[in-house]
């Protein structure tokens, strides 16, 4: 800066160059440049990791699928050790979807009911501690659920399975040939128990943010508590509940250990949910991995890629629904 410049008439200001714009934001100091570089670099690193995950999985998957003698999508077999190898994901896709559907059918209504219980029914003094405990339960590692499922839940299922077989066996879906109850239904129930806390937490957050005015307006019109919930709470919370369920679904789809410990797998599609057998993507990877050859591992990576794509779609849908209500994102749950 020159003192003479002050005396002179200022020259017409030229349009700011990008550098000057940055200078105005104060990013020309070396410290600032380093710091901006570091933080932007971290952001870019995350993008690179995502791209690398997709890229490397696809690369290894293509290696495996190109040698597959069966149809990768429709084959009912997983023989990667033989030459030529024959493997396909039909059974895994079926098992993954069925177990997740069972889990959602059980967990979503109960989770919504618990969220309503905590926000609208439970005594104030109880609801705080209960919500806290449910928060903690969401942090219980899945392997512990798996151990509990295999050693405590499975023996308990005998009674339920017998009952279902007696009264609903004629449907074919609930028939049971007295195998150990390590079947898709048990897996679905265990997954439901596992995703219950997360769906409850997110739904509760949404229900808590229902404008007081809506509820009071309904009450002032003489609505009962159920009518208040039906007319003001549920419509307001619908998108939040849907996205919470999708987050839960994402977890159920990718759950590995709980399924691997409980299910006794085979490579068939069983019409009955009670007969043991079937498999899921994640469970198949975990149980086949240790004996797999390098080619076998590539085949498992190929099935993992399918799981990756499915969970991306589910989570993408959940995010799209959340987008309007940013604060309910379940990343912190």
């Amino acid at each position: 800066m020159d003192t003479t410049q002050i005396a002179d008439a200022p020259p017409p200001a030229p349009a700011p160059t990008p550098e000057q714009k940055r200078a105005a934001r104060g990013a020309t100091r070396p410290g600032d440049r380093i710091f901006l570089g570091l933080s932007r670099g971290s952001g870019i690193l995350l993008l690179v990791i995502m791209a690398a995950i997709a890229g490397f999985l696809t690369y290894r998957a293509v290696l495996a699928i190109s040698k597959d003698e069966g149809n990768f999508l429709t084959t009912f077999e997983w023989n990667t050790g033989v030459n030529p190898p024959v493997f396909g994901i039909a059974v895994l896709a079926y098992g993954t979807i069925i177990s997740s559907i069972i889990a959602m059918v059980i967990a979503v209504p109960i989770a919504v009911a618990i969220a309503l219980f905590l926000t609208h029914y439970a005594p104030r003094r109880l609801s705080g501690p209960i919500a806290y405990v449910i928060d903690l339960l969401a942090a219980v590692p899945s392997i512990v659920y798996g151990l509990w499922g295999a050693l405590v839940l499975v023996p308990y299922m005998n009674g339920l399975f017998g009952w279902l077989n007696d009264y609903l066996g004629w449907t074919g879906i609930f028939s049971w040939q007295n195998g150990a109850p390590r079947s898709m239904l048990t897996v679905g129930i265990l997954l439901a128990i596992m995703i219950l806390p997360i769906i409850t937490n997110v739904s509760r957050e949404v229900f808590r943010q229902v404008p007081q005015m809506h509820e009071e307006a309904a009450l002032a019109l003489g609505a009962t508590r159920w009518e208040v919930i039906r007319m003001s709470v549920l419509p307001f919370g619908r998108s939040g509940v849907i996205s919470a369920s999708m987050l839960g679904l994402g977890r159920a789809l990718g759950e590995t250990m709980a399924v691997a410990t409980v299910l006794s797998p085979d490579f068939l599609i069983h019409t009955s949910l009670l007969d043991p057998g079937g498999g899921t993507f994640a469970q198949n990877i975990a149980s086949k991995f240790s004996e797999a050859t390098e080619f076998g591992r590539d085949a498992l990576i190929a099935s993992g890629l399918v799981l990756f794509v499915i969970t991306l779609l589910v989570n993408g849908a959940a995010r799209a629904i959340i987008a309007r209500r940013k604060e309910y994102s379940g990343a912190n749950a």
Partner: protein
Amino acid sequence: MSTATITPKRPSTLRGARLPKWAPWAIAAGSVAAGLGISAAAGLHSDIQWALIAAVLHILGTYVIAAKVENRRQAKDRVVTSLVWVAFLLAVVPLASLVWSTVQRGTKVLDVYFLTHSMGVVADSEAGGGIYHAILGTLQQVGLATLIAAPVGVLTAIYLVEYGRGNLARAVTFFVDVMTGIPSIVAGLFILSLMLMFDMQPFGFAGSLALAILMMPVVVRSTEEMLKLVPNELREASLALGVPKWRTILKVVLPTSIGGITTGIMLAVARIAGETAPVLLLVFGSKFINANPFEGAQASLPLYIYQQYGSGEATAYDRAWAASLTLIAFVMILNLVARGIARWKAPSTGR
């Protein structure tokens, strides 16, 4: 409001008949008794069956009685109330059973010996042995993962909140969301595909890398939330004094939100400490103490539980439960401390 307190209490003619306050409890007690009675009479043995009968009776009874005394709308309201209570009790049973059985069966072999010895020369069918090697492995793997993921996550959050504008920031936000949903086994497979490429054997740090991938998005999201809570006036005051932006961030923004950031990181640590799938693929597990995470197979707590369960021996089950209890205790303590810090250091958003 004030007139209501002056008016003497007398039964309003505008209100319809109401069931007394004790009615729901009476109906509940009655239906439990009926459920027990019916199952005893019919010789049913399952606990689920009498509970189911009782629940159905309770809901039916509530509706019929309330519809008779009050009206249909009130009856519906009462039925929903009991349904919500039933759902809550239904969910409590398995969750309570999980905690109860872990504590009850876990305390059987959990002692100082168990925590300070490895499985070195102990066969699965023998009693004895411990989880020292697994604790060591978990601490090292999780610690290394945190060393990678915490700085990257916090810096990314700083970028998104303090600098982020335009397409790059939007892309990062989107992919952080997407990354949150990656199944842990897929993160494991990704590192595995790298290891296959370089023909490497399982080692602890490979697990750390996969865990770091799972941890980063969680740290980013929680740190982002915390940075957004820092009032803009603080930043402006600092910048107005001529403090460079990077020093403003380091000396004003981060110290203000450090409590929340720590909480977020600890919750993320608690979450990855229980991950089994990537560790199974990349670290492989070992019965021996291996204090070097950069070479050779290591053990880890969740993996130990899985392998002890897989061996199918009664003594191994005992050890699996004890390891589960240790893992849950570790995760819960992290959670409790993290939440304690959050409450203690919560940034005051108001004046």
